[in-house]
């Protein structure tokens, strides 16, 4: 069942900038959806409308069946938000900040629950520190703790790992996995394709206020992926024999490896012919390896501007 239903959501800001041009999307309960898109694509606006930070110009959104505008209390009670920018009262202690979030959402004080969240985020030792005494990564953890403190069923993570170190990123992925196991639905925006690839179930690509596609991650990669065949040679070469010129081969590892790219959905991959030509050219192969091209390539392909035609 869909826990988040977005129906033709539009947002035009006062200056006339249209940030969302009719986005429709359903997100299933317990799902992890990654929204990819360049800066200014509308990712944050979409999340902000769903959380009540920005009023939609047209369209509707429902969370757990509750309209995000007319039935905002019930809708928002289900939602946790970790914003992109670090926003904390510098003088507030970590523990107070996290308790504040829980109380604000109308939940009874629960020290054991808060302790569990702080421990999970390695913040327990810092609970009596003022937030201004924390490092950037720690501050981000506090923001996550605040969002988790009111036990959301839907968690929005707006660029959760922008500018954080590798350790925190790994921790974050672990937390996301744990939340998913508890049935929490997670919507995250990210610049890091690697992140979407690592943790998302489905991927949405958004650009210029429009959702270009939403698809199951593996299906997306299968459908659009290109593969690379890496051929290790027994003896390195400095130049390619002429008969191999048509394959678009790239020399790597100082001539010890040949890289061949092909489309898995193409009519012919060209592998058979390539291998035959390699043998004919007298090259001896040591090893073969194929790799799937990353989401990054797919993403860049989708959002790239079409080349402008010269007016002259």
């Amino acid at each position, binding site marked *: 069942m869909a826990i988040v239903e977005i129906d033709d959501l539009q947002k035009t800001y006062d200056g006339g900038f249209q940030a969302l041009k009719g986005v429709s999307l359903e997100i299933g309960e317990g799902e992890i959806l990654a929204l990819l898109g360049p800066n200014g694509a509308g990712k944050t606006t979409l999340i902000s409308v769903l959380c009540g930070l920005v009023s939609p110009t047209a369209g509707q959104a429902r969370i757990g069946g509750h309209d995000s505008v007319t039935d905002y*209390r019930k809708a928002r009670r289900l939602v946790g938000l970790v914003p992109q920018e670090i926003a904390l009262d510098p003088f507030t202690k970590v523990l107070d900040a996290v308790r504040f979030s829980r109380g604000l959402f109308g939940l009874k004080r629960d020290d054991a629950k808060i302790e569990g969240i702080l421990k999970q985020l390695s913040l327990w030792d810092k609970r009596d520190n003022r937030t201004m005494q924390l490092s950037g990564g720690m501050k981000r953890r506090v923001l996550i703790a605040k969002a988790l403190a009111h036990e959301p069923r839907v968690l929005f993570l707006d660029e959760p790992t922008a500018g954080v170190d590798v350790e925190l990123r790994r921790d974050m992925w672990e937390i996301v996995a744990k939340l998913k196991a508890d049935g929490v639905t997670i919507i995250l925006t990210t610049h890091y394709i690697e992140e979407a690839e690592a943790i998302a179930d489905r991927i949405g690509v958004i650009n210029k206020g429009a959702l270009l596609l939403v698809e199951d991650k593996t299906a997306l990669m299968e459908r659009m992926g290109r593969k690379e065949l890496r051929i290790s040679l027994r003896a390195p070469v400095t130049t390619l024999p002429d008969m191999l010129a048509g394959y678009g081969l790239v020399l790597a590892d100082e001539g010890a490896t040949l890289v061949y790219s092909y489309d898995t959905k193409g009519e012919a991959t060209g592998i058979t012919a390539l291998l035959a030509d390699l043998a004919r050219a007298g090259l001896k192969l040591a090893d073969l390896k194929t790799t799937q091209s990353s989401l990054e390539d797919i993403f860049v392909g989708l959002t790239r501007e079409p080349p402008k035609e010269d007016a002259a």
Partner: protein
Amino acid sequence: MNWSAVLTIYRAEMLRFFRTFVQSFISPVISTSLYFVVFGAAIGSRIQQVEGVSYAAFIVPGLIMLSVMTQSISNASFGIYFPKFTGTIYELLSAPVNFLEIVLGYVGAAATKALFIGLVILATASFFIELQIAHPMAMLAFLLLTCLSFALFGFIIGIWAGNFEQLQLIPLLVLTPLIFLGGAFYSITMLPAVWQTVSLFNPVVYLISGFRWSFYGAADVPIGVSLLAIAGFTGACLLIIGWIFKSGYRLKP
């Protein structure tokens, strides 16, 4: 009603007050004492009785009003401006709370602080003069209403302000003159007729006059008019705040 949210906001705001408790407590005590030394002892000894009481006693209600008004405004405006400044306002806007709950939390806390300071000044004054309070309940009611209405006004300023200068602008440019010209340190009956008429356009006159009535039973304007003025001011602030949250003014794009 999400009372938990109201209490949470209220408690967080009061916590900020207690962090600077010594300052909050000491500064009104010192400034009140200074006013008494200057106006009460030095100048006051050369002034005849005003409206039947000594000058030192006469200025007590005005002195309390001066502090209560400025404190209500500065506490409430800072209280809601600071989350806007730090960005933590996102949490208020995405929480299951309505505008009334947010206002109750912030304005309630700001009014509490101002009330506390008003009472501290009253207590300090009692060390310098023999206080007589003709209508104690009315005095408390006036004090409370002033705290609330000016905290509401401060809340509006805090939402409107785009930077720290604007936060100070209205209290400094508008309110301080209104309070000083509102009869805090004199009875407007002491003014020439023209300026008495001009003073009647100053809303603060009604508040100070009503508050002074609760002490000494004498007022510049009828007490009923004072009550109407403060009720009208409170109502106007509430209407503006209602509109702010409905339209999302300066809060929600």
